[in-house]
């Protein structure tokens, strides 16, 4: 019974939480160009409660837009670790997925989810604003179902992530 109420409490919490997602857009690549369009009148992501915020302490979503090179990866990890639980990572565009057009570049990492846990990828080069909004909706669904547990994975598999990070950063 007690477990049940706690479960319900958590569900209600998730239900409310998914309606207020503050995102930190880490604009490393060309993907950031699409974000203003999502924010402005035509697509208006604010109607889903998604608002850009400034510092990692305030944000819930880390939006990694575009390719991640080894230099920015260090910053992304710092930023990710500064964020407060629960936190979600959204990989944006094809570069974080598999390196994209930079597949043979010595500087660009090929899979973002080897270094930080990614809850959701929005594929495309570039994804249209509609795709971004669909992605957010999907993330909300995941949060609602309690499946967006990247921050827990990061804690559990900290050694794995740190090892991978060490391999490229040092």
């Amino acid at each position, binding site marked *: 019974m007690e477990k049940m109420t706690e479960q319900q409490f958590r569900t209600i919490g998730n239900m409310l939480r998914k309606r207020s997602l503050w995102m930190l857009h880490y604009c490393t690549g060309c993907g950031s160009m699409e974000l203003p369009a999502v924010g402005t009148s035509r697509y208006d992501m604010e109607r889903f409660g998604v608002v850009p915020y400034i510092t990692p302490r305030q944000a819930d979503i880390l939006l990694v837009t575009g390719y991640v090179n*080894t*230099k920015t990866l260090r910053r992304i990890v710092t930023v990710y670790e500064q964020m407060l639980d629960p936190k979600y990572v959204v990989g944006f565009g094809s570069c974080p997925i598999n390196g994209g057009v930079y597949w*043979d*570049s*010595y*500087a660009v990492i*090929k899979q973002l989810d*080897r270094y930080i846990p990614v809850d959701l990828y929005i594929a495309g080069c570039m994804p249209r604003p509609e795709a971004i909004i669909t992605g957010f909706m999907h993330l909300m669904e995941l949060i609602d179902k309690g499946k967006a547990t990247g921050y827990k994975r990061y804690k559990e598999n900290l050694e794995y992530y740190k090892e991978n990070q060490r391999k490229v950063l040092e």
Partner: protein
Amino acid sequence: MNILDRIKQLNITKVNVQRENRIFVDTEKDKLISVLYGMKLIGFNQLSIMSAVDRIKDNEFELFYVLYNYKEKVNAIVRTRIPRDNPVIETADKIYPPAHTYERELTEMFGISVSGNPDSGKPFILENWKDKPPMRKDFDSVEYVDKHFVFRNPEGKNE
């Protein structure tokens, strides 16, 4: 006096007017600084960019300095060749201060060391780079990538 005539009076090997307002100036390595100084006196006040090209077949690096003359609206590209093994050049940051930063990049990306520039050895863009300078043509990017990064499994299965 015409600007071309004034350039010809400098210590150069060849002048090539490729098209209107674009002059290629070739010089030798040890005369480079004096030529740059002369160019500045002529009125080429801005160093737009400087970089190098890896002429791996000739076993040489080709340095080029893109200069601009605001008065005459003329671009001049000063070029020189330096040997590929043990490349050392002299700094130009006394003449063109922006060269200071470009030279740091040069050291990092091509392994060309710059004498007279105290910062030339400092890391610029790459962090903890241990391999060959990446802009050299004998640096194999694909090999490096295979060694350092893991590609996604096409089936979508991660380890």
